[in-house]
């Protein structure tokens, strides 16, 4: 995306024995921060929010310099207009839920439309809690109120530190579209810390991998998740390829949609988008199977003719096969199968992808390519 302000970060910060050294340029959309526990994710967004001061460096958002150690600029957190959903909730214990939610309102000149309040409360399923104090809320309820509070502050940039970690799948599934909406409709750039690759894939435009205080990789979700060298960080289980597709037909009877990419078609469960919409689909390597003859009489709706581009063996029972089906696709099969099928670079094979294996979790509702400048 070219819309939205550019967030420029270039800083170093020492806390205890831990050193954070980051140089990043992020623009618009939702950027996921992914990295193992203790890698520095929370520290980094604390610096962006202005809650900690970097030792040296600069942070700027659009035209505005938020921090510059050389020029001694350090904009106060409340002037940064940055919303923050904290990892540990931080609800105000002396205020009831309603007052927590509307806390930021007194500092905002625009009116809060009752609709918007009702919408957020409804979405987060906290309408029954409005009169309660945080001390009596369950873990997940607290986190939902914290999300609502940050959303209602109408931030220019939203930081979310594992906002959904303590929520059940059903609740997550309800809130995710809302965050997508925030990202797309309100154009609020979001930095999103998460341990769940599903969430990352679904929501993120770009992905920042952090390890031990350093940026290991930064790029579009597609690129980053396709890089084999990053597997140790992104997780083998989650390997897959991401396709940029366009909705080209809907089958209302069977509730399926046909997506087009590079001259190929992919059938997936119905997508509630107009024809022509861009979309991102992640096809997990483990959901792709290969055969050397065209499968027949099968329940698998998507079969692609493919060429083997690369075979990445690993020490385990699996290998990953990079395929060209007009676009890159990754398949994960056992080494035994690879041997039995006689796979080799350049070989023509058929790749089967179950429509049932692609569900909302793997559909990102945004298709336009991410602009990494």
């Amino acid at each position, binding site marked *: 995306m070219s819309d939205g302000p550019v967030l420029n970060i270039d800083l170093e910060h020492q806390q205890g024995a831990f050193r954070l050294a980051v140089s990043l340029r992020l623009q618009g959309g939702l950027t996921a921060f992914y990295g193992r526990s203790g890698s520095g994710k929370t520290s980094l967004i604390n610096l962006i*929010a*202005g*809650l900690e001061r970097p030792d040296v460096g600069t942070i700027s958002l659009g035209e505005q310099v938020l921090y510059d150690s050389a020029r001694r600029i350090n904009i*106060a*957190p*409340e002037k*940064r*207009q*940055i*919303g*923050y959903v*904290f990892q*540990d909730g*931080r609800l*105000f*214990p*002396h*205020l009831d839920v309603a007052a927590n939610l509307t*806390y*930021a309102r*007194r*500092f*905002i000149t625009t009116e809060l439309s009752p609709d918007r309040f009702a919408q957020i409360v409804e979405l987060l399923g906290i309408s029954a809690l409005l009169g309660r*104090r*945080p*001390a*009596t809320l369950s873990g997940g309820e607290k986190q939902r109120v914290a999300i609502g*509070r*940050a959303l209602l*502050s109408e931030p220019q940039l939203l930081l979310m530190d594992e906002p959904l970690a303590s929520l059940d799948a059903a609740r997550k599934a309800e809130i995710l579209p809302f965050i997508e909406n925030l990202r797309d409709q309100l154009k609020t750039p979001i930095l999103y810390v998460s341990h769940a690759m599903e969430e990352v894939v679904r929501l993120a435009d770009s992905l920042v991998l952090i390890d031990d205080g350093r940026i290991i990789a930064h790029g579009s979700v597609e690129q980053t998740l396709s890089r084999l060298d990053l597997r140790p960080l992104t997780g083998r289980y989650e390997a897959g390829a991401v396709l940029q597709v366009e909705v080209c037909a809907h089958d209302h009877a069977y509730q399926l949609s046909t997506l087009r990419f590079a001259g190929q078609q992919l059938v997936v469960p119905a997508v509630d988008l107009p024809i022509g919409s861009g979309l991102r689909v992640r096809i997990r390597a483990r959901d792709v199977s290969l055969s050397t003859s065209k499968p027949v009489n099968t329940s698998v709706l998507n079969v692609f003719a493919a060429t083997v581009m690369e075979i990445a063996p690993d020490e385990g029972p699996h290998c990953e096969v990079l395929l060209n089906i007009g676009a890159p696709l990754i398949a994960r099969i056992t080494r035994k199968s690879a041997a039995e099928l006689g796979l080799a670079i350049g070989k023509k094979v058929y790749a089967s992808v179950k429509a049932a294996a692609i569900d909302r979790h793997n559909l990102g509702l945004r298709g336009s390519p991410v602009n990494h400048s």
Partner: protein
Amino acid sequence: MQVFSLTAYEIEAIQLSLQVAGLALLGCLPLGLVAAWVLARCDFFGKSLLNGIVHLPLVVPPVVIGYLLLVSFGKQGLLGHWLWESFGISLAFNWKGAAVAAAVMAFPLMVRSIRLSLEAVDGGLEQAARTLGASPAWVFVTVTLPLILPGILTGTILAFARSLGEFGATITFVANIPGETQTLPLALFSLTQAPDGDAGAARLVVISVGIALAALIASEALARRINRQLGNHV
């Protein structure tokens, strides 16, 4: 003199005491908040000195404090002179002076209690408020202040009790003038010193304790409510 009805002398002393303690609190509270804040949150050269000055009224016998007040707020005193010239306020031998004495004596108790609460406030909540757009002043009003209410309450009740019981500094600074500066403790002291004042003194002790008890019970009820609101132990 009936046992269960107050004499005019007693009523006068009670009124005066409440008036003095009230004014003392009024002065103590805002200044105490500021001092507690500065001592809890700021780091500067001379902080120890400030801390020492705040505690001075505890360490030095009240009579000395009374004398020092006399020296500074008396007619010839620098501050007293200035107050008189600038505002026409005289503290000498009147109840306002008694309130100043009470306030000074109660001040360290107020400051310490508030400071204790301030230091226990979760900085994370204040940070959260700032990300939501609150300036430091607003954070203080909307987050810190409510969270330190228990400390303020404790400080207030200690200060009130101390003001109510203040004797040495008051009698030294503004003398023991019936109807003017003769608060309960001064009246009580006079009675205990008189050869036949024991019965009257006992009555005044009961009255003092009664007032303090009433204030305590009210403050307990308030504290209970505050603590329930904060989700603390009840």
